[in-house]
């Protein structure tokens, strides 16, 4: 589904990703772990198409297409979803209106009929149950005045509604207490399917107790320096990121 090869990305003149390669197939859950400043958020942003991320080398192929030449909205239409580390507050834009606009824009992009407000509300009610979100949040402006946990749950709720093929969760666990973390994880697990892939970016192993990954990668110094199964996350938790640096002379030399 997704093939990243030797990706180099500059942000504000600084090279953040330095030869990252990663292959993700449908149905898989990949966890990307790493210390602060390793380039974890850069990966999510560059996949979603944010401005200001300059790809200087390498390629990203998604479903056989060059993902990097698509606009953010086209990527969304193709099924790429980024759950933001810091969801943006948009005063004056009603959450429900926003979600319907987004869903219908994606459906239009794919040549599917748009949903009318009745069909849309029916869908929303179904998804609300899964996410345990109060429908009061739907009547407010997008993320405005939401608590940290509400914002993150709203991201997962959007994901449930938009049903992406590739979901990238950028530190969705940060700032969440254990109950909110469980809720978010349940929402994600409910969406796991053989057709859908996840890239779960996180600093802590804790989230992976609830979203059990198929693969764990350690991102350090802009590259993946170690890959393994879920036990790798436990080793990291035990030994810390310094342990990876010790095992990876290249990363150490650059650090």
């Amino acid at each position: 589904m997704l093939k990243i090869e030797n990706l180099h990305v500059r942000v504000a003149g600084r090279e953040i990703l330095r030869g990252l390669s990663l292959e993700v197939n449908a149905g898989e859950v990949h966890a990307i772990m790493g210390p602060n400043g390793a380039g974890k958020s850069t990966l999510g942003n560059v996949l979603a198409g944010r401005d200001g991320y300059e790809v200087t080398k390498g390629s990203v192929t998604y479903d056989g297409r060059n993902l990097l030449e698509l606009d953010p909205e086209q990527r969304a239409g193709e099924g790429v979803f980024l759950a933001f580390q810091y969801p943006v507050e948009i005063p004056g834009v009603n959450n429900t209106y926003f979600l319907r606009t987004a869903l219908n824009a994606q459906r239009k992009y794919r040549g599917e009929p748009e949903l009318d407000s009745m069909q849309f509300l029916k869908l929303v009610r179904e998804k609300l149950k899964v996410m345990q979100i109060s429908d009061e949040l739907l009547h407010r402006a997008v993320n405005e005045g939401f608590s940290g946990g509400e914002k993150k749950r709203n991201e997962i709720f959007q994901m449930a509604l938009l049903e992406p093929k590739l979901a990238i969760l950028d530190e969705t666990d940060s700032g969440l207490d254990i109950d909110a973390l469980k809720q978010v994880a349940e929402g994600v697990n409910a969406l796991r399917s053989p057709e859908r892939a996840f890239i779960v970016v996180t600093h802590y192993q804790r989230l992976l107790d609830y979203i059990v990954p198929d693969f764990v990668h350690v991102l350090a110094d802009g590259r993946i320096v170690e890959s393994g199964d879920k036990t790798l996350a436990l080793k990291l938790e035990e030994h810390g990121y310094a342990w990876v640096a010790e095992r990876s002379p290249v990363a150490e030399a650059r650090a």
Partner: protein
Amino acid sequence: MSSPFVQAMVDAAALARLPGSGIAWLDAARRESLVAFAAAGLPPPRGVEAWRYTSLRPLEQRRFALGDAHAAARAVDAAAWALPGVDGPRMVFVNGAFRADLSALDALPAGLTLLPLSRALAEDAEPLRFFLSRMYRARGDAFASLNSALAADGAVLRVAPGARVAAPVHLVFVGAPAEAELAWHARCLIELGEGAELELVEHHAAAGAAPHFGNLLADYVLRERARLGLAVLQDGAAAATLFRRAELRLDAAATATLHALELGGALVRHEVHASLDGDGARFDTRGVFAVRGRQHVDTRLHVEHRGRDTAGDALWRGIADERARGVFQGTIVVARGADGADARLGNKNLLLSPQAEIDTKPVLEIHADEVKASHGATVGQLDERSLFYLRSRGVPLAAARSLLTYAFCRAALDSLPNAPLAEHLGACLLARLPIRSEETPP
């Protein structure tokens, strides 16, 4: 040497047959106003602060014919002024001329007097003397002087003390295509007696491409405890030139609320002067201007707090796209002795294109003690983070821009109590927003 604009107006005045002519004080006032206008001409490019951001040089070269001889025969579709939530008495002016056939003045609610200025002058001019004799002598008052000299009609509206007029009164000014470029001058006098209540809608509409010059001068008097809700929808013809000036005077505990949406016109000036004379008077204003193409829309708000414990909250939003220019000048004066005033002024603006320009100038002049006053003004662009967020959810760039722009303005219109009208104004605004694709050059 006078400019073509001024000369054409003066020439036309000599031939004009204005209602009420022969009334000595009115003739004198008109004559004197014309002399003042002719002597001063249009405000010069420099030196008059009130006109600092709006050049009248192109206007100065234009000649307009005075009045529309065929106004009574112009076909105008009622769709031009239909507004949801506005179904009360209606007065329609086409190219400045009153059209009884298009108006709805039958069965006025109890306590409401509403008639054209021309008829009011024919019936009993004396009660209008105070307003129509006023001389505008400040530099920059050219259009008020011109209006005083040449106003051929308008609305005279009175609400009796204690009367509550529930259904909104609709004053419609329609520009209709004509054989020449026309000038019209309309004068409105609106008086709310003690404890009277009125909802009023001032509506500028277009019935086709009409590059006319419109000049509206309106006086509002609110006696003690009167309440006025005023909504202004300016959706005039794209080529129209429109100068409007409202003068409000509020007695003790009177309350006025203005909601304004400025969309149309090529060159537009909207002045609102309010004097909070009585203790506890309150004047809140909410407004949005949205301009594009080469539109120039200038809003000037001037509020003077004179009584004690007066209040005023002004919240304005401006957006300019393409090569348009928006101007907002907001001045709040708290006079000596106006203790306890609570005055707020906020103006935020959004530039949607690198060639667009918005000038905002908030001014506070405080001459009293124990005053709460604040002002703030910003000019910025759409937030890149918000744009990316919307796009990452699949909303195309152009739609994302419109959505954010609309959201930016909503705070100023949402508080209009007439919900169907508020929704309609929102829809008018949304319909105007730039839906531009990446391919279109800015």
